[in-house]
Every structure is written in structure tokens, then in C-alpha cells.
């Protein structure tokens, strides 16, 4: 059994990569991708911490919930991006400035 630290390192790396993707990428789809990465990092953490209480599956259950919610979120997010793209002919948030002062 590998120590819990390795999982946490991986999860931290994934989370950081997600944040970097969210911040750096210009395209909304890539941003959503970054968010998925961050969610998966969280899932990894949940499952990893479940090691500390054997016999219970709370962490796994929670991870499953998160995956379901992530799917929903991805669906809704992609739908919005699609609509935005249809309307503005672009999916880059920086170029959508109708609400700006």
C-alpha cells in the first residue's frame, strides 16, 4: 500500500495544473477542461483520505457524487459555451464584452 502522501502530491499537482489551465487558457472550453482537472484532483483527495477509515466508503460515495455533479456541470457549461459561440461567433470570454462598462 503506497503511503497517502503520494496521492496528495498527485492531487496537488493536478489541482495546480487545473488552476493554471483555468487562468492561462483563453478558450472557454479549455477553462472548463481546467475545472474538470481541479474536480478530479479533489476526487483523488476524497478517495485517498478514505484510506484512513477502513470499512467505510464515505469518500468513495462522495467522489461518485462529485463525478455526477461534474458531469452535469460540464454539460451545462458546454451548453452555455455553445450558445455563446452561436451568439458571438467566438468562445473566448475576453472577446465577449457586451456587459463591460
Amino acid at each position, binding site marked *: 500500500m503506497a503511503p497517502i502522501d503520494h496521492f496528495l502530491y498527485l492531487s496537488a499537482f493536478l489541482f495546480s495544473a487545473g*488552476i493554471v489551465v*483555468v*487562468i*492561462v487558457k483563453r478558450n472557454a472550453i479549455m477553462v472548463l477542461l481546467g475545472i474538470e482537472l481541479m474536480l478530479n484532483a479533489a476526487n483523488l483527495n476524497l478517495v485517498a483520505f478514505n484510506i484512513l477509515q477502513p470499512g467505510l466508503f464515505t469518500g468513495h460515495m462522495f467522489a461518485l457524487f462529485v463525478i455526477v455533479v461534474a458531469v452535469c456541470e460540464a454539460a451545462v457549461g458546454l451548453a452555455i459555451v455553445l450558445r455563446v459561440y452561436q451568439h458571438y461567433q467566438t468562445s473566448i*470570454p475576453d472577446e465577449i*464584452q457586451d*456587459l463591460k462598462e
Partner: protein
Amino acid sequence: MLMVFLLPLVSCVISFLLTDRYAWVITLTAPLLQLISMIGALIVFFSLSAEPYTLALPWFHIGEFIFSANLQINAVSAIMLVVVTVVSFLVHVYSTGYMAGDENNRRYFAMLGFFTFSMLGIVLADNLLLIFVFWELVGFSSYMLIGHWNQKPAAVNAARKAFIFNRIGDAGFLIGLMIIWANAGTFELRNLLLQTEVFSWQTSATLCIFCGVIGKSAQFPLFTWLPDAMEGPTPVSALIHAATMVAAGVFLLSRIFALYTPEALDVVALIGIITAVLSALSALVQTDIKKILAYSTISQLGLMVTAIGAGAADAAMLHLFTHAFFKACLFLSAGAVIHVLHQAQQQTHTHFDVQDIRNLGGLRKKLPATFFAFALSGSALAGIPFFSGFVSKDAIFTGLWNWATMGTSWRWIVVVSAFLVSFITVLYTFRLVWFMFMGEEKSTQALDVTEAPLVMRLPIIILAVASLWFIITINPVDFNGWLFQILHPGKYFHFNLMAAVSASWVLLALGTAHRMYRTGKNFNVKIFQRAFYLDFIYQLLFEKPVLALASFTDRIDRHWIDGVLHSGVYAQVTLAHIIGWFDKWIIDGSVNAVAATSNGLGSFTRSFQGGKIQLYIFWSIFGLIIFLIWMLL
């Protein structure tokens, strides 16, 4: 009585209010209102009782001093009332003919009504202050009427001159009023005339008031405005500058006669006789009809003032009464001559000065009615027996004689001078009549002259008849008739010798005049012609120094005062520049700095909220990391 007083004012107001379109209405209303006023005055005159009638009108009060605007009618003012209203009415009627076609008719009749109103105010007022107010008002309306033809520069200058000369006299009047107020404490003539003890400064006060009289009644040395005032319309000259306004001074003197101390009266008599002699001599050589009449008016006024100075105020009033009628008649007939000649000139397009007697002559055939009136009133002026002028002059001579026998020897000089004046009066009157109506026609030969219209002829005839003896006395050689009885109840000193001397004196003068002027020769003496260079002297004494002073002060003004002002201005401009710099860089700078700071701060904080979601996320995570580091360490 109030009606008599106020109707001319009503006429004035109507004339002012009517528009030019209805200007013809004024020529009806103005004489009509004057007629009613005249009838009222006659009623007042004939119902006159021995006791003065007073109409008490409270005016205003300062503290405990109550000023009243009382109106009073006594014998003197009743006679004056009749003179003013009758002459004013006749002049109004005459003016409807004389001023026909004048575009400023409304203003003319308005001022004529206003003048009559103010003149009646002087006559009726029982308060020196009120008299002064109306005194100024007649001066004002005289100014307006002299300058009625304001397109003529001469008329405007004459109006200004009359106004200024009157103002000089009125300054004296005002000072006199102050002295009276300070020493007697009242302006009420009733109280002033009744008090018996002499208040201090009384001589000075009365002499100061006499200054006002000198101005208004054109006495020496302020008489030169009156001949110039002849630039005004002739009816105005008749009403204001012969019959009424200039007589206001004489009236005022006789009204406050009781206030005059013997010393003051001597001065009055001297001034009067100097005026009479100087202006009679000037009248002798003038060539303008109206100027001759003007100088003769001054001379007659001088005689009246002399009579007052000699204590014969009632004789002066008698002469004022007769003089008003015959002098108004003379002026109006002269005006008629000028009027018809002007019209004839316009028809034939010839030009010569119709007022110059050297151009006239032989008009008796063409203008019989005017000649008749002129001759009658001229005889009255000359003092020929059976005319009113003879009677009133007789009264004056008797008064002077009385006065001279009671006093020192210099008074005889005055008496002799008065006789001399009456002699000269005959000379210039004869000259005037002779040059205008007798002899051969000169420049008027080619003109088609017709008599003036009826509205002008009628007043002249009425006034001419009024210059006969019977309007003042039944007996033509005794001035002590019914009118004089009103002025001076009781038997008056009179001796027939005086009348005889006077009559023969006048006849002698008439003979001399005939010899002198029969040939139509014109004598000219330069010093008389220029009225003893009085205007020139004024110019030398006042105008030149005043102008010199003015240019001197002007130079001081330019060099010194302007210099100081300019350096002050430069200093201010420099200071302003400094302040401007300070304002721009320090005050505005600090404000701008604050603004720029907040602007920079704003744009800095704004940059966090540029609408870029990723930036928001970046900053929130950045903040979170900072927070975590701070928490953990």
C-alpha cells in the same frame, strides 16, 4: 377757489394724456377749462371781503413742526388771480390760432396749462416754502416753453440761459428761506406778516429773497435772459415773459412787503431804478420787435420794483395789473404781425427778417385791427392820458414823490430817473409803432398780407380795450379808483399837479419822439444795443475764468490724478499676474494633483475588474495563497 386753481392742471393732464390723433381736442378743451377757471377767478374777485379768506390744507409735519399748504386770498392775490386767469385764457385762445399746425401742440398746451397752474400756486400760497415750490415750477415751465421750438439752437440756448439765471436768483431765495426758518421759525406768511418785532438777520433774509425776485423778474444785474427768452413762441412771451411770470417777483415783493426793513427797501428801490433806466435805454435802439418789447417789460418791472422800494407796493400792484394787459396785448399783436407776415412770406417765397422793424412799415393799411390794438396798448405803455398806463404810472410817481419828500436827497435822483424812464418809454414806443405801422411800406410791399384769424384778433381787441383807463378807475386823471380802493382802502395822498406834470411830460416826450423818428431814421448806439455789455461782462467775469479753471483742473486731472490712477492700475495688473500664476500653479495644481491621484488610483483599482474572469480567478487565488501563507507562518 380750488377749482380756479386746479382746472389749468386738469387741462395740462388732458393735453398730456391725449394721443396725437386727438390733438385737435386740446385746442377746444384747454381754452374752455381756462375760461371756466377765469370765470371762477372773477367770482372770487367780486365776492372778495375785507378779511383774507384762508383754505387750510395740512401738508406734512416733521417732529412738532407742522407744515401746512394753506391757500389764502386777499386783495393782492385776488387781483393777481384775475390777471393770471384772464391773460392765460386769452393767450390760450390766441394760441389755438398761432400754434395751429405745430406738431408739438400737445406739449405746448400742456405746459401752458401747467404754467398757469403753478402761477396760481404762487399767487394763492400762504407759505413761503410752497411759494418757492411753485416759483421753481413756473421757472421750469418757462424753460420748457422758451425752448418749445427745440430744433432752433437759439431757442435751446435761450431756454438754458433763462433757467440758469433763474437758478442763480433762486439760490438767493433759498438762502433767504433758510435764514427766515432759522430766525423766525415759520414759513407761514400769516404768522410772519403779523409779528411786529424785527427778528435778527431780517434785512439779509429779505434781500436774499429779493435775489430770487431779481432772477425771476429780470432785474439788474440778471435781466439779460429775458430778451433772449423771446426765442420762444410769441403767446408764451406775452403770457410768461410780459404779463405773469416776470410779474411774480413784483407780486412776491408786495406780498411780503411788511417784512422788508427800510434798509432793504432802499436797496430794492435802487436796483429797480437801475434796471428801469438801463433797459429803457437798451429798448431805444433794438431792432427786433420782440426784443424792444422785452426790454420795455424789464424797464416797467424795474419801475414797479422801484415803487415797492419806495413803499408804494399798492401802486406797483396797480401798474402790474395794467401792464399785464397792455403788454400782453402788445406782444400778441406783434405776434399776429409776425404770424401773418410769415405766412405771406411762405406763399411768395421771399425771405427777410419779419421781426426786424427796419424791414417793416406802413402796415396800418393792411392790418387795421392789429394796428388799432397795437396803438391803443402802445399808448398805454407810453402813459398817454386816458389810458391805463398813465393812471398806474401816476400812482407810482405819486408814491415816489411822497417817498422822496420824506427822505434824504439821493431819493430825488431816483424820482428824476423814473421821469427819465417814462420819457424814454414814450420814445421807444413811438419808434416801434412808427416803424411798424406808419410811413412807407418797405420789404412787405410785395406781400399779400391779410389779417390774422378771428381767434387771434379777438383776444388782441379785448386786451386793447382793457388798456383804456376805465378798467381801473372812473376818473382818468385820478388813480384812486375802485381797483386801488381794494388794494389800499381809505383816502390816498394824491395831488392833481402830479397828474398834470406827468401828462405834459408825456406829451413833450411824444413831440420829441415825433421829431426824432418822423423821417424813419434809425439811431444806433452800440452800448445800448448790446444792453450795456452785460452779457459780455458775464462772459469775461464768469465764463472765461470758469473755462480757464476747467482747463486747469483738466490738466491736473490728466497729469496728476490720471498718473496716480495709472500707476495704481499697473500695480494692480502686476499683482493680478502674480496672483494668476499662484492660482494656476499652486491652487489649481494642488487640486489637479488630488484629481490625478484619485484618477490613477481609480484606474489602478479598475484594472482588477476589467471583466476578465480569469484575472478575477487569478487574483482570488493569489489572495488565497497570501492568506494561507500568512495563516501558516
